């Protein structure tokens, strides 16, 4: 299954490594990755990361762990049915981060 993740991250040391490491550790592959400063949030130094991942496990295994990252400001997850980004359904999760 392919998933499209849109993240807003605060630009702290190692923030990208955290996202990449969490993704790998929880058993997902990264197929596409794009990162740029979030233009609308220049003052607060936020990064916008779009990432397409695939994996066998339910995506909540990954998103619930990404939600725990203290440098994550927001996360949106969509199912992409084909490797090209086809937004079929939107699955946004609002989980508090607690661990």
């Amino acid at each position, binding site marked *: 299954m392919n998933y499209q993740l849109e993240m807003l991250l605060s630009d702290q040391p190692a923030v990208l490594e955290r996202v990449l490491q969490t993704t790998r550790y929880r058993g997902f592959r990264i197929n596409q990755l794009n990162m740029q400063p979030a233009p609308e949030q220049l003052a607060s130094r936020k990064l916008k990361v779009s990432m397409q991942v695939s994996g066998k496990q339910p995506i909540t295994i990954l998103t619930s762990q990404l939600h725990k990252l203290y440098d994550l400001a927001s996360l949106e997850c969509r199912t992409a049915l084909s490797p090209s980004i086809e937004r079929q359904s939107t699955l946004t999760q609002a*989980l508090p981060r*607690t661990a």
Partner: protein
Amino acid sequence: MKKGAQAILHFLTEQGIDQVFGYPGGAIMPLYDALLDSPIRHYLCRHEQGAAFAAIGYARSTNQVGVCIATSGPGATNLLTSLADAKLDSVPLVMITGQVARSAMGSDAFQEVDVLGLSLSICKHSMLVLEPQELLPTLQKAFQIAREGRPGPVLVDIPKDILTGLVPESDEQAASATAMPLAIPAQLQTANQLLAESQRPMLYIGGGVGMADAVNELRDLIDRTQLPQVCTLKGLGSANTDHPLYLGMLGMHGLAAANLSVQQCDLLIAIGARLDDRVTGKLDEFAPHAKLLHIDIDPAEIHKRRQADVSLLGDLKVILPQLHCVGDKQAWREHVSELKASKAFPYAFDHSPGQIDAPQLLRMLSDMSAANAIVSCDVGQHQMWVAQHMQFSHPTCHLSSGGLGTMGFGLPAAIGAQVANPDTQVVAVCGDGSFMMNVQELGTLRRYRMPVKILILDNQRLGMVKQWQELFHDERYSETDLSDNPEFSRLAAAFDIDSDVICCRSQVQTALERMLAHQGPYLLHVQLDHKDNVWPIVPPNTANHQMWEQPK
């Protein structure tokens, strides 16, 4: 304005931290210099891993944040095992490491390692302070993160020039707390409905109860509902062990009645527990007839290992008082009660000559020691015997490395617990293998003359590994023989610690009495038969009800 080093100590004092553990070195020297003028008491351990385990012992025995300090490079890498240990057992900890000066960072400077990079997957959060004005807000955040929600360790890496330079006072008020989940009333209602409809409900109690400070709420729930209970390794002490339907620990080395009842229940109520693989055995066959009601503060644990039928996210202290259990469960209670009686562990309380039986010795120790005694242990067979046969009045009384299973945990954790609880009886139950992994901490005991009691259960083996070689590797014993152990009492003597050694059953009671009555630190070396194993055991990839209850 203060220098960074002074500002840190001032901040710690304001947080109520008056005792820390650590080990000095180059990059952290400014902080050690400032310590000389600070009211904070620093405990010098003899290895950074020991210092961090002591901080963990401090934290786990008090439910407060523990603090440890180390220098850059090797000091920091020596902390990593303990950092991972605290992560897997959700221990609130703040680790402060010195880093080389900012101008030298990234140049492979002397004692420079990328601690932030190394820490990422083994802590709750980690931060590198890159600007003086970030120092105090970062520390503030570190304490908040360590404490809030599901607790955990936070590492703060601080370059030396920030320690020596001036830092502005923090004008930031306490950082706003992260919103925690609040159980939804509709889900609470569904949960209570599940409880009412179930015929055979079972409470499965994890470490979260103690960490949420919800022991009283749990005991109230048990009093109200009279439901049978099992505990995980970290949950031990949460329930009242005298309750007629208290079944003890479940899982790979769980007690027979605990495992069998869970396999038979029709509603499993997981409270602050995460269905860890040591608990579930073969996951597909764990509690196969049960619906799962999963209650936790961490959303990532819900549905992680097993789909929950109903989940309640939030503070256990708030949720537990809202649970009720109506309906007639009497037949189930009677069934569990019979199972408990029929599977009761056959302690042989005889004083006959013969080899010492570790379960019997530990049960005696449990009965003889103070009700609020704190017991720490290492990892292996002796750790499982402690969990099976000792009884604890509170989860803060049982310090055991659960998630990481780190050998060498027992002695330094006991030291930290004794620092936090100077008037409480503290006993470290060590394995002969594990003891040698942080044996240098005998130096810490000697330095501070802390009255920690060390009980070495010596089977001259890496016993747990030996047990697996015997049962699952055709008795092919590879590198598990420790019959060349040092003479432990002479080792103790070198650190001015009194000791005794016993090898037969008739000596046990007197030796335990003498140990507990001794004023200072003490080491009791107990020689066991190396053939003894831990029973029951659930073989790998096997359902818990198919445990082996005794030697074949």
